[in-house]
């Protein structure tokens, strides 16, 4: 069975900007909650963000699934005391548990804190880029270009670490 990932708004927009999202959703089962769709696509299109239209194209072509998050008692208990998350991340958590997904993809520090403390598997966008290169889903050139587009949003230390890893793959 294909690995299933649940994406939040943060990684969805950043992976779109880096032009890696399409490759990811073509090779893995990726889903988002209806709330994340509203945040990224519906609200984004109202404000004429190009990223929103690109994400919607993937939804329309059924490469990126949109699912009802539903409710989950265990998640309710988990987030009971937490006031650092918005409805987008909370719906992503519901969706993760209700669809028995393998991991959450996110780049949101507050969300990653919650995932880490609750031993929920997660992957950050930079690692997605590196791994897709290792799997030869994207070329090193595409990965480096994607990383450059992601650079304004990530810490220099993380950018340089990823760049070094990719250049080792490029030049051996």
């Amino acid at each position: 069975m294909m690995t299933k990932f649940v994406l939040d708004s943060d990684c969805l927009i950043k992976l779109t900007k880096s032009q890696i999202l399409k490759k990811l959703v073509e090779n893995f089962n990726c889903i988002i909650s209806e709330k994340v769709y509203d945040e990224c696509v519906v609200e984004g299109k109202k404000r004429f963000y190009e990223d929103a239209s690109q994400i919607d194209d993937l939804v329309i072509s059924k490469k990126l699934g949109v699912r009802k998050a539903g409710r989950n008692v265990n998640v309710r208990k988990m987030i009971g005391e937490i006031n650092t998350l918005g409805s987008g991340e909370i719906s992503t958590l519901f969706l993760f548990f209700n669809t028995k997904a393998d991991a959450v993809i996110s780049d949101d520090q507050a969300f990653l804190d919650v995932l880490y403390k609750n031993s929920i598997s997660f992957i950050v966008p930079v690692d997605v880029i590196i791994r897709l290169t290792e799997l030869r889903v994207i070329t090193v050139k595409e990965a480096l270009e994607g990383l450059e587009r992601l650079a304004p949003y990530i810490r220099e230390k993380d950018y340089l670490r990823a760049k070094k890893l990719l250049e080792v793959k490029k030049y051996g």
Partner: protein
Amino acid sequence: MGSISYPLRVPETLMEVVELRTKEEYVDKATALRQLVYMGAEDYVMCLYKKGRISLSLAAKLLGKSVHDVLRLALEKGIKTEHRDEHHKASEKAVRKLMKK
């Protein structure tokens, strides 16, 4: 977005800033004061977002903006995602285990 009235005493010096803004921006005093309060609130929310104390979705809700707007604002303010070392390790472990062809 709804609004409520709230009794508030403000320092005289702040009212001088308000006066300045009324002339610079051609707005009345109440509007100028509201704008200054909002600017302070925006900085505070973005500071919490930068520290990882609140998420993107919550920051957007608190500011009455879209998540795209908040990411653009973060870019303008030079706010970048910071991952803790334990987050890096957990992500690297998960990506190797789960992302396979």
